[in-house]
Each structure stands twice: as structure tokens, then as C-alpha cells.
């Protein structure tokens, strides 16, 4: 279900002179003073042109944001306490000049030029907690075309993103249950496609979802097969964080592992889907 749209208009946009705009205004005042003292028509006109440009810039800067529609895209899950990506979709009927987007308290992302139509923007933010989390408020601002005014809007993206527990090294309860072998038909990682590689290895399902061309990596799962559960005697969240780290490592080693958590069990397996299922279980536990 598509998330609700946020349309930038008169009720949602705010505009004030930027610091440069205040300096610009002071310069115009200084030139007016010089023009009065020297009775110079040309200086009068330049001072009035500066004022005229400032007045126009107010409307042009506002125009640069007005009419843009924002909505949330499908974002992948990520670990808490690490920068993760959140997908936003900007829909603009006309081309726009330089914009800046950032989540409150996070690094800004600059768009030098926004073409007409839909544009996907990936913003990063660092969640503090696991579970379904919404990112901080989005701040979209621009000073174009002259930098004299700053126009901005704030929006709380409504669509939550699944956040796995933060990764932390530590003890987990690790047992080796009855081994199951699923063969080599499961891939456990992806990497960018290199020229000349077989097309059959490409993750076409991911391409269809809008991801770049990537190659599936297959590894022999080997003999290792573990069943993980939280270490006893540790705070719950800390135990989950240890499990998240262990799952990540086992996944990268290509090992098979299962997870037992509060009565729910995921049978040992390997691959991205299994890893994501385990981490999701940790996130929502």
C-alpha cells in the first residue's frame, strides 16, 4: 500500500531571509547611503536592483519547493546504531534547482538538480532502537536561486523501517542440532556484476525491485550447523545484540545456523532470506 503523500504548498512551506540575504540587504542600504551622499543615479539604480532582486528571490525560492510531493519508498532493514538508508520519492511537475534533504540531526543530502517526474532519494539515518522505527523528521530546504532566502519544510515520514538489534560481540548460546543439508542451490551473498560474468548468476528478482545488477554468491555450507539462542544471565537486549552479531558473522562465513527465541524456532539454514528472517525475529522479539 503506497504511503500517504506530503505536498509542499503555502501551508507547509516556511521562508525567511538567509544570513547572506541580511548581508545583501545591508549592502543595498549602504549603496543607498552612498547614492544619497553622491546624488548618483546609477548607484541608486543598483541599490534598488539589489532590493528588487531580493524581493523576487523570495517568490522564486518559494517556487522552487512549492508543488513537490513527497512519499516514502520501500526501505531495506538495517542495524540499530549504524547509518541505514531510507528511501524517499520526490514527485515534481517541473525541474527544480538545488535542494537539500536531511533527517533531523543527520548529515544532509544535496540534490544539485531535480528533474521533472519522480526521483528516488536515499537518505541515511542512525536508529537507536530495534523494531519498527520511523526516522526522525525530514528537513527539506533550498536557498536557490540566489541564496537570499531559505525556504524549508518539515515532515515526519510515516512509514516505519524494520531495525535489527545493534551488532555487538559477545556470548551466545550455541548448540549443534541434527544437521540438515540443503545443497548448493542457496546463495548467501551478493556483489556487483563484473563484465563478462554469466547472466544466470544475476539476481534478477532484485533488479525487478529496482536494485542494481548484482551477482549471487554461492558457498559450500560445509559441515558447520548451529542452533543459536540468547545467552543466559544477560540483559535481553544485550543478548539480542550478541545474537545479531553472531548471525551476521555466520552468514558471512557461509555457515548454516538456526535460531531459537522465546518459543519460536527457525531451522538451520543459510542465505540472505534466512539471515533476514533471523534478524527480523530478533528485531521484533
Amino acid at each position: 500500500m503506497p504511503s500517504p503523500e506530503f505536498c509542499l504548498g503555502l501551508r507547509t512551506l516556511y521562508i525567511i531571509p538567509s544570513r547572506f540575504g541580511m548581508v545583501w540587504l545591508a549592502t543595498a542600504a549602504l549603496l543607498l547611503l552612498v547614492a544619497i551622499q553622491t546624488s548618483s543615479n546609477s548607484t541608486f539604480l543598483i541599490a534598488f536592483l539589489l532590493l528588487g532582486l531580493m524581493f523576487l528571490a523570495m517568490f522564486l525560492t518559494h517556487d522552487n519547493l512549492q508543488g513537490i510531493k513527497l512519499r516514502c519508498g520501500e526501505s531495506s532493514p538495517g542495524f540499530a546504531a549504524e547509518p541505514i538508508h531510507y528511501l524517499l520519492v520526490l514527485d515534481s511537475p517541473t525541474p527544480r534547482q538545488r535542494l537539500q534533504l536531511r533527517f533531523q540531526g543527520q548529515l544532509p543530502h544535496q540534490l544539485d538538480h531535480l528533474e521533472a517526474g519522480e526521483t528516488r532519494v536515499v537518505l541515511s539515518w542512525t536508529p537507536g532502537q530495534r523494531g519498527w522505527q520511523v526516522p526522525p523528521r525530514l528537513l527539506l530546504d533550498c536557498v536557490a536561486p540566489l541564496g537570499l532566502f531559505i525556504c524549508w519544510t518539515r515532515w515526519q515520514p510515516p512509514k516505519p523501517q524494520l531495525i535489527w538489534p545493534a551488532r555487538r560481540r559477545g556470548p551466545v548460546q550455541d548448540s549443534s542440532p541434527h544437521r540438515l543439508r540443503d545443497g548448493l542451490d542457496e546463495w548467501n551473498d551478493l556483489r556487483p556484476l563484473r563484465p563478462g560474468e554469466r547472466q544466470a548468476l544475476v539476481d534478477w528478482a532484485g533488479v525487478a525491485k529496482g536494485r542494481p545488477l548484482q551477482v549471487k554468491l554461492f558457498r559450500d555450507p560445509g559441515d558447520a550447523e548451529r542452533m543459536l539462542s540468547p545467552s543466559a544471565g544477560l540483559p535481553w537486549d544485550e543478548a539480542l545484540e550478541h545474537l545479531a552479531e553472531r548471525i551476521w558473522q555466520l552468514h558471512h562465513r557461509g555457515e548454516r545456523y538456526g535460531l531459537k527465541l522465546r518459543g519460536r524456532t527457525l531451522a538451520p539454514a543459510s542465505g540472505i532470506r534466512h539471515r533476514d528472517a533471523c534478524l527480523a525475529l530478533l528485531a521484533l522479539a
Partner: protein
Amino acid sequence: MTHIVLLVQCLGLNLSAPLSWPTWVLVICSMLKRRESRRAVDYRLVALLQLLSTGLLAAQMEGLLASGLQLITVILALSGLLAHELGGVVSWAALLRRSLQLLLAALPLALVLFLFVPRVAPLWSTDLGPRGGAVSGLSPEMDPLSIGQLARSDAPAARVTLDEEERLNSNSYWRVLVHEQFDGRSWRHEDPPFPPRSGRGGPLSAGPSQWWRVEPSAIRMVPWDGAAQPVSTDQWISSEGELLMASSPRRPRSYRLQQGLSSVGWQQQQPQPRDRALPLPPDHLPRLQALGRTWRDQPKDVDRLAAAEAWFRSQPFRYSLAPGAFVDLDAFLFDQQVGFCGHYAGALAALMRAADVPSRVVSGYQGGRLVRPLGGSPYLDLRQSDAHAWVEVWLTGQGWKRVDPTRWAGSGQPSDPSIDAVVSAQAGPVPWWRWLQLQWWGLDLAWTRWWLGFDQATQAAWLQALFGEQLRWAGLVAVVLAAIAVGVGLMLSRGGWPGFHRDPLQRSLRLLKRFGVKAMPGESFPALCRRAGGLRPELALEFQAMAEAQQQLDHALLGRRQRQYQRKLWRQSRARLMVSASRSGRSARS
């Protein structure tokens, strides 16, 4: 580029002007700042420094050439500002177009402010003009020799143009300085005190105007015809009939005079005791004093003046710019009898004072060349070689009356070969470079008349003429006009973003939207056009032609001519499709 234009203008500054140093400092600061700029705020600051420098330059250099360079600087500075905001997305040509577009958009509001914001007189008396620098022209002390040297100089002095062209007369006298102090050898000028601000400027009238442009000089007095009145409050007429300017004389100045309704007061100003006295001991200039005293027998001052004229005409005086050295005026009047205007004027004024008739020497310009440029109005070009001196005598019942004794000497014809050469050089055909200079000055004067003529007084007269008794509505009208100007400006500035809207793909996509065909994700433009052709088979060929031309324009490596050709093809097919789209729209509405 912007800095080069700024530096070229700075080279023309007079460094003795207080404003010239801040201007230089600002230009150099902006150059240095530009070198080390890395952040957006730095680039913006550079552009603002450039605009501020241009404003200060405009206050010091008002000519047509300087104004043109200032306009270029403003456009370039604005382009620099936009270039940073766009992050190199568009070309320089597109940037310049956008700057011009923005400037044109801001111009209506700027003009409304320019015309309606009430001009005020300078808030405090500060001379921001130069205090030194190369000057030429008349000197406050009229040593006869100085005018003789000036008459050999062909340097420009002033240019004047009038509302009534027929009044431009190359025989007119243009007064500058009044020399009332005589020390037995030279006539000195005494600076009149500054009048209070309320005493400056004459009553406004609708009389014809004179526009003057004068070269830098060492004195505050500027040429005028002795009859008009200044319209600016930084100009006033002294009781001796001198036109003074409050601004610095050491830079080119422009001003407007207007024919007053009332008679000019200075001509009826009673002579001071100093105008009457000849403060010389009896043994100094004895022959001059004796001759003057003989005319005291005449009962009327008019008769004494007539006697002096008769005496001059009876003597074998000759005009020469190189008369040789004189011991004193006695030697000139009674021994050598060869001299030029300075000698004749100085001698007659001294004789008249000896005859108890108040008199003084006036220096200024007489003559000049009437120039009819290809562009602009006819004007009188006054050179330093047109410098002249004459006498004013006080005649009871008539006031101060101009008398030119040089005309009494040898029928007023110069007999010196050197001055003949100057005169013939002015009268004969002009060399090409001088012709070009005269044409340029014509344009410059037209600019002065049109642009610099709009001053505080003109604004007041203009508002008075526009609103009459309803002047209180001027503010409301100004606000309404400002709102309209902002609307026009917004229309102009939103009217097109040249770099983007000229893009054939975007324009074609907008056209296709009018047919109800929108691009789907992943669909190429040719595929989109094929789909549109499927929906409107009668236009399929046009859609295909537009797609092919767009593909060529956007992706092919084309020469200039090929690009023009493809652009023409694209325009033609788009125009035909637009006609079809309009027809479809009309039929759908009906």
C-alpha cells in the same frame, strides 16, 4: 572576467577621492576571496563584493562608457551567483541569459522605486570627490599670462546642449570666475562663502533646460550662461554671478540648469566698495591712473565707458597670444599695445576703477564648436582654447554690464599666427579620431541628459506634473505600481529557465502530455512516440519524426550546421503536433 571589468574601471578612478580607496580595497578583497573560495557562502560573498564595488564605482564614474561597464559587471556578478547555485548544470550562455532574465525581472520594481522613492539631499556635508589629480582650466588668479597659455591648449573643457537647439550659439559668453581683487598686476578671485542649504536652488519652472558636462578642474565654479538657474541643491549662484558646485571639481561633473521665471539677481547686486576702489598708491601705474581720472569729468558712467572705448579704438592695439614680457599695465597700454584678452580685460577694468566706475574682470569661455552628432542632440564643444576674459562694469540703472574690450583691439581679429592655427584647427575638417570622439561625446551628452538629468528637482517636478494637487496619492500609486512591477517581474522570471526549457526532450514530453500520453517507467522516448503514434495513427509519422530529431539532438555528435538542421526538423514536427493538439483540445471542449 568580472574582476577584469572591475579592474579596468578602477584604473579610471582618481585616487585622491575618498571613495576610490574603499573601491580598490573591495575589488582586491573580492579577487583574493575568489581564489580561496571553496564553500557556497564564499562564492556568494564574492558576488556581493563585486556588486558593492560596482555601486561605489557608479558613484564615482557616471559617463556612458563607465555605465555600460557597470551594467556588464552587474550581469557577470549575478551570473557568478547563479552559477554556484546551479552547480555547473547549465552552460555559460544559458547562465548569462538567466542573469539577464533575472535582471529584467527585477528592473520594473527597481524603476518604480527609482521614480517614486523621494530623493533626499545628502544627509551630511562630506566631499566624497577627489582632492587632487590632473586638471586643466581657468585659475582663480587671472595673471594675463595664464589665459594666454590656456588659449594654446586644445584640451576639452565642457560640453553643453540645450532644449532649444537654435539657442546654441558659438558666440555666447559662458562665465566661470569673477576676479574682483586687483593688486596692480593680476586680478584675483575670492571664494564666496557656502550659503545655507535652504538658500540653494532656484524656484522650479517649466523653462528650457541646459545640460552641462564639464571636465575636471581645480575650482568649484562651473560654466553657465549667466541667466539660467541651477535645479540641484548642491549648486548655487554667488552674489557675483558665479555658479558653484558643492561636489568636488576634480572629476567630470554633469549638471542641469533651467531658465528661471524671475530675473537673475546677481546683475542687480550693488557693487561692493572693493569693486570701486583701485587700491594703488598714486605713483603705481601713474599713466593708467591719470588716463582714468581724465574720464571722471564725464557726468555719467555710460559716458566714461564710451570714452574708454573711443580711446582704445583710437590706439593701434593688436591681438597676440605671444606679446612678450610686460613690466606692468602702463607698459601694455602706452608702450607695447600688443596683448590678448587677459591684458585688455585687466587694463579696462583698472581704467574704469580709476575713472570711478565699479568694474571687475570675468573669465570663462567664448566660442566653441557646434557639433551635430549622428546620435544625440547637437551640442557646443568648448575647449580650453576657448578660454576668454572680459569686463563687467556697473552702470547706474542697468546693473552689471558685460564689456569685451578685446573686440576693440584691431577689430577683434587675432593677428598671432599661433592662435590662427588653433582657430583654423577648430574650423577646418576634423581628423577621424576627433570625429569619433565628437560622436562619442554626443552620445555621452545624450546619456547625461537622459539619465543624469533625473535628479531631486526633476523628480519633484515630475511628480507635481503627474499628480498636481493630488500629490498625497503618489504613495498609494507607487505601492500599486510596485505590486504590478513584482507581478511583471515574476512573470518574466518564471517565463523560462533557458538551460532546461530549451531541452527538446522535456518540451516534447510536455507536448505528449497534451495528447494524454505519459512516459511509463523504463520507456524510452522513441518507444513513447511509437505508443503515441499507435493511439493517434494519423499523427504517427509526426511523432516518429519528432523522436528521431530529438534522438539526434540529444545523442549524436553533430556539427553546428547539422545541429541547426535537426533542431529545425524537431521544431517543425513539434509545431505540427502542437496545432493538432490545439485542435483536439478545442473539439474536446466543444
